[in-house]
């Protein structure tokens, strides 16, 4: 039995007076989909930020693929196989969709300054090869038609999709998604869910996702972690969470 791909151990994080996270521990299994839910301001995004090194927790550590770190920079997290999307879309506004996604592959590109400068041999081959890989992702996410559009002009929902594409381009082992379906209608959410599931099933990528739509969360996740005011108040399968009184009080309210 493999160790969990990610273990978060006793992580605490505070900003000035605000305790964003208090002693959080949980783990995510290989090839699983884990959802983090909780009221607004509970610390969900902060938790993702800790996992990929944007925030440095005051206490606790993160173990990813059996490597433990308590001080990590985002750049290294990316190298070891973590990719993510952001709650407030963080696309590169001045670039086209294609370029954005290609940027996601920069970790895999090797060509140096000189070969790029003259666009010769390895660089050219590399560009074409990566373009091919990116086109697969574009096909997969069905965004062929906007390939060359500057991302700034896209509507919100499509931007979210492009962001997912960019994360996927890195071929990560762990994908962190911060509210990937916010601002989408049901149809689009279905698509997005489908993409997440497919990535998970076809490539075996583990997914951690934050989402407020309980329908989506309950349907697609294997495990759910619930935060409230920086504390973990529940963890378990969708069914367990649905019936957890604490969670119902703090977050779900009366279920439909």
């Amino acid at each position: 039995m493999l160790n969990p791909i990610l273990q978060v151990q006793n992580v605490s994080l505070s900003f000035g007076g605000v305790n964003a996270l208090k002693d959080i521990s949980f783990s995510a299994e290989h090839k699983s989909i884990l959802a983090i839910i909780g009221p607004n301001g509970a610390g969900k995004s902060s938790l993702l930020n800790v996992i990929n090194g944007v925030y440095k927790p005051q206490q606790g550590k993160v173990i990813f693929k059996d490597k433990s770190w308590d001080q990590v920079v985002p750049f290294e997290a990316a190298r070891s196989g973590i990719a993510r999307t952001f709650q407030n879309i963080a696309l590169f506004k001045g670039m086209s969709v294609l370029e954005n996604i290609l940027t996601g592959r920069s970790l895999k590109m090797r060509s140096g300054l000189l070969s790029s400068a003259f666009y010769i041999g390895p660089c050219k081959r590399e560009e074409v090869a990566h373009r091919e890989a990116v086109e697969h992702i574009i096909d997969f996410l069905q965004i062929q038609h906007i390939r060359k559009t500057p991302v700034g002009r896209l509507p919100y929902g499509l931007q979210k999709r492009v962001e997912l594409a960019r994360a996927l381009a890195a071929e990560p082992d762990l994908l962190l998604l911060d509210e990937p379906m916010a601002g989408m209608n049901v149809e689009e959410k279905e698509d997005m869910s489908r993409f997440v599931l497919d990535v998970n099933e076809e490539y075996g990528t583990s997914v951690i996702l934050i989402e407020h739509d309980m329908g989506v969360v309950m349907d697609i996740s294997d495990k759910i972690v619930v935060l409230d005011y920086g504390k973990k108040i529940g963890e378990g399968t969708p069914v367990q969470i649905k019936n957890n009184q604490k969670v119902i009080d703090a977050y779900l309210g009366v279920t439909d």
Partner: protein
Amino acid sequence: MFYREAGQFKASYKEDQAILPISQDRVGLILILIFGFFAIPLFASDYWLTAILIPFLVFSLAALGLNLLTGYAGQLSLGTAAFMAVGAFAAYNFELRVPQMPILISFIMSGITAAAVGIAFGIPSLRIRGFYLAVATLAAQFFIPWLLVKVGWFTNYSSSGVITTQPVTIFGFIFDSPSRRYLLVLSIVVILALVAKNLVRSNLGRAWMAVRDMDVAAEVIGISIVRTKLIAFGVSSFYCGVAGALYAYAYLGSVEPDGFNLDLSFRILFMVIIGGIGSIMGSFLGAAFITLLPIFLDIFINEAAAILGLKLAAGITSVIQLLVFGGLIIFFLIVEPLGLARLWQITKEKLRLWPFPH
């Protein structure tokens, strides 16, 4: 109607990733190059070559360098002239102190020296951003000319601080006439422009733009901010350095440290912004605009006054020129904040639709 890419299909990604995927653009560029390399040296007067075309090319190169840094990597710099100074004085000293130094190697070395200095002055960019960085780059702008004046060695102890460049000879061929110097500059600029285009469409260029647009996201993707920014400073300064060397060797023939002042830095920044930030072609458009406009205005205002029978008080022409120049910068930015290159693009988009409105 005329500008249609319909019917042009790309059979491979390689083709799609070509520099100019649309054939009209390709043909246009080739025509321009033919014109630049063959027609101009034959027909242009010395005045056009020395006073307009050579400076235009040299400034284009500097603007290109700044555009890589500011337009692509998003680091606003006001120290361009200082890096040009480094290039000019480096080339001078390589030629002076290394026996039998081929001039082209000196030019490359001047670029490399400028790159090294640029990287050193780029280090603050790892922490400082935006206008704070812009002002901080003024430290380079003031420090470098100061150093060049202070340390006599750089100017070979010239009492006036002015250096006079050595003759430019490549394989025994002397570049002394305006048309020859023009061709030399043109060749270097064309090659470096191509290199710049290659860089920005490669992974490095995308990393620059990523850092520019959102550095946190770029880092999360796995782009090393440190490396990307410093390379941007290095490459940009390389361009500025070579431009500085050409400014000294092919354009003015003699330069002094004080000539590389803040005004020059700003002129180059104008070129970048008027031309189009984040656009290779924009650098050329901007350089043309900023180099030609004052000359045009100068001549035009006089002629206009003569035709209208006005007797302009001496000096008033220059004042009017200043007014019109400032006014036009404002006008263009209002019409299109993203510069002439973007304006050109929109025009193309309209041409594509023409004669239909949408």
